[in-house]
């Protein structure tokens, strides 16, 4: 076995993809070749270190986007989220509140006026009805 083949087999051996038939020739070669033995030790050391590399966490903004689509449980990211209110959103909220209040007030006063007018009509109708008789329409 030459060194090139030996190094290719080392790579497959680290991945548990080397056929059993090639194990013995590989280790026989490693027993007698310093260069390949050093290659094996170093590559194995890098292989073990790389296995310990951690994932880089996905940014929270991406989680938020997918929570809208239903792919992230809504209470999950909220646990770690800070409550922040931006100035524009506070102004918009305040304006919305004022508009809703004015609308409710105007609806209320209209209803009040219409009820008062109905009440007046009823009173007038009652007034116009001759006493002692029940008005029939």
């Amino acid at each position, binding site marked *: 076995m030459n060194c090139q083949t030996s*190094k290719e087999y080392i*790579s497959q051996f680290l*991945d548990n993809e080397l056929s059993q038939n090639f194990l013995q020739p590989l280790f026989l070669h490693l027993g007698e070749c310093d260069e390949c033995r050093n290659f094996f030790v170093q590559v194995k050391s890098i292989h073990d*270190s790389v296995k310990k590399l951690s994932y*880089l966490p*996905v940014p929270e903004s991406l989680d938020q986007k997918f929570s809208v689509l239903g792919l992230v449980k809504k209470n999950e990211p909220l646990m770690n989220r800070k409550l922040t209110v931006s100035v524009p959103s506070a102004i918009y909220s305040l304006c919305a509140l004022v508009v809703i209040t004015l609308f409710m007030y105007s609806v209320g006063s209209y209803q009040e006026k219409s009820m008062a007018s109905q009440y007046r009509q009823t009173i007038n109708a009652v007034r116009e009805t001759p006493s002692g008789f029940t008005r029939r329409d």
Partner: protein
Amino acid sequence: MMNTIPLSDDELVAQFRNGNLKAGSALYSRYKNAIFSFCLRMLEDTELSKDATQETFLKMMTKIQMLHNGMVFKSWLFSVARNEVLMIVRRKKIIPMERFDEDESAFDSDSPLHTAIHSEMKEKIQQSILRLKPAYREAYMLREIEGLSYEEIAQATESTVSAVKSKLFKSRAALNEMLAPFM
């Protein structure tokens, strides 16, 4: 005490295909960091990696019906992520496309981002991985970090098993060359 066994990708894919969003949520949670890390290590840019990750999972949602074998979900998802990375590379022209091609040398000696020597070995390894050419880097990461089999890597990268073997060997030899002075 009851032990809960997490559902396999295959089971989750089947449920997701039947409209169970919780299954989709579980798949997203299982792979979001892996996909983002893969994109970031390929693109070396956080914002672009976020875009690629987002597109990958949007495609997962819209194209899951086309995946008939849930057993290959992981390699399928990485192939989607890889395509997103390649599309961004083409669109933004951030990395010359020829760097995605294979040639005799597996690493870039003139990669501008990674010339600084860091003190920590872990950092050195990270930097050395980034110096691998993209075609080698993706195969190496899919094997060493994601644990995909040769067959799965071949599927994810539209390649062959023998090409994958070759890329992994060359990547290891290149990393060994880069890191030998520090070992």
